[in-house]
């Protein structure tokens, strides 16, 4: 019969129309912005820099606890080249307690960033992670979208809030690294003590940590592959 197929289709739309008054399955939208759906744990928008809060009263706490050591790997690997880093002249202790450089300038142009999270993947220091904040509109096209290091710095607690599983895995990984680093320094100290008993101590002991840190940084630059491959990025989904 001509028109049968049309009636069949219209019965389908009628079913859906009536269903939208009764069935919760048919209500597929929410009234944004009054109602919001919580973002998924794996969701990613733009990167931010993680810092370990040490003294919340200190206004420069974000800089003291910043994990970034300005190794500039993310700057090199970023596909649209939206990261700008300047290395500091002096050093401060990093997350593992080693003396490291820190970013004197760390800018991300989020009008260029394409949220690919390659910076997160290549970072050997667990310093840069993806945020879930997406309501970032501003009336300043250039300055407002060029985030500096202070705007980018978010605490580790915040990271735990937005990516709980992933952050827990990262904390474990860092704790492991810290234990290893401590074991290494103890071993070095013991070896030094033994050597010290035999021969006079070296003339310039202040340079040893710096050289150590530099060699560490260069090692990270040349061969961080195994490190990154093992890292449990985005374990939670």
């Amino acid at each position, binding site marked *: 019969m001509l028109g049968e197929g049309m009636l069949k289709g219209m019965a389908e739309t009628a079913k859906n129309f009536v269903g939208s008054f009764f069935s919760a399955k048919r209500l597929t939208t929410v009234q944004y912005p009054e109602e919001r759906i919580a973002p998924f744990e794996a969701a990613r928008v733009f990167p931010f820099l993680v810092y370990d809060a040490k003294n919340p009263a200190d206004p420069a706490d974000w800089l003291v606890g910043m994990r970034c050591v300005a190794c500039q790997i993310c700057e090199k690997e970023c596909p649209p080249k939206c990261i700008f880093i300047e290395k500091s002249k002096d050093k401060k202790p990093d997350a593992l307690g080693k003396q490291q450089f820190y970013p004197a300038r760390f800018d991300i142009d989020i009008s260029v960033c394409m949220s690919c999270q390659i910076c997160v993947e290549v970072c050997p220091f667990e310093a840069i992670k993806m945020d879930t904040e997406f309501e970032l509109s501003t009336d300043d096209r250039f300055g407002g979208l060029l985030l500096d290091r202070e705007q980018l710095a978010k605490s580790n607690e915040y990271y735990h809030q937005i990516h709980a599983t992933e952050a827990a895995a990262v904390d474990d990984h860092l704790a492991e690294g810290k234990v290893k680093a401590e074991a290494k320094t103890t071993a070095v100290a013991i070896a030094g003590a033994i050597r010290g008993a035999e021969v006079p101590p070296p003339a310039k002991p202040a340079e040893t940590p710096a050289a150590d840190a530099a060699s560490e940084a260069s090692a990270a630059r040349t061969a961080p592959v195994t490190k990154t491959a093992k890292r449990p990025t*985005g374990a939670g*989904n």
Partner: protein
Amino acid sequence: MTEFNSHSATVAEMQESPRSEHWNRPAHIEPSGDGELLEVAMGPHHPSTHGVFRMDVALDGERVIRLRPVFGYLHRNHEKIAEGVSYLASMPYTDRLDYICPITNNWAYALAVEKLTGQAVPERAEYLRVILGELTRFQNHASSIGFLIQEMGASGTPLMYAFREREKILDLFEKLTGARMMVNYMRFGGCRVDASPAWMNVARKTVAGLTEFADEFERLLTSNEILMARTQGVGILKPELAVNAGVTGPMLRASGVNYDIRKVDNYGIYDRFDFRVPLGDHGDVYDRFMIRTLEMRESIKILQQALKDIPDGPIMDPKAKIRGFRPKPGEAYGRIEAPKGELGFYLISDGGPSPYRYRIRPPSLINLTILEDMCLGQNVADVVLIFGSVDIVLGEVDR
């Protein structure tokens, strides 16, 4: 030309195709010959053009005498950019080719690089690729049918039905990869993140719901008389022309040519799954619509098998490099059956950190080249329809 094997079946075989000869019209109408032509520029801001695309159409009354496709408005220099950045850095750019199906773009690129380096992919990663690839195919076909019907004038309803389902699939993508569309998921030698058991459960539930949706969608559309009247006998593509023009994907199969790269190449692990390749027998817009509907069913079949069989294990070859990736000099062409046709990446490596040559074979662009042949002699209103049935994404056409 038309070969059939045990894996393929025509539309008529697979389903009672509700085709009424009553609505068929002659495929080609002779020009009236009074010599007066009207030239119309459809696009680049025409609502039917799926983006910025222009068709310069010469009309004799209502009939199309000449059609010239003009593309390039969305050119973003993708291939040249890829020759300047590392292999890994091109991966997120491939998401932006055919932005309806980013997973398959990732897959084709990863496959090409894996061919170049001889990199093996772990079992579980192959399964994850198939699962995500077939989900992509499903949502692409659903939304492309929705767009096709919208171009017929049914503004909204079928498209919203398709998008409701697409939303569930995009939620799955976001849960796993972190992004709805710009997934950046595959890596050379595996995938970026593993799927948790919770994700697998949600995926199984979603796939179970897809059958229901396919039933609903078919009840809504396939036997609709208006749809048949508008699409049957319109925009016929002969199999000889389709093969000669290099047309691939649902377009080619709607013309009756049995060519599916999943069957021909058996890339990945597609030889393990039991599925059939639907073939059309008229090569008109209705067949293209029907092929997509049936392929959605086949995708569900593959998804069910893959979700049942997926093994545990690593998702990334531990020896695979992420940074400092420098393949040996050589060349490779990796191709997959993307939802729109054969998507291939051709790479030449000179041993450096970025490819010497990076070339994409986009299905949308090549399927679009025979637009004029399909449109000649048709009414101008059908041009929109024929164009919609090609199923293109301008991000891929212009790159």
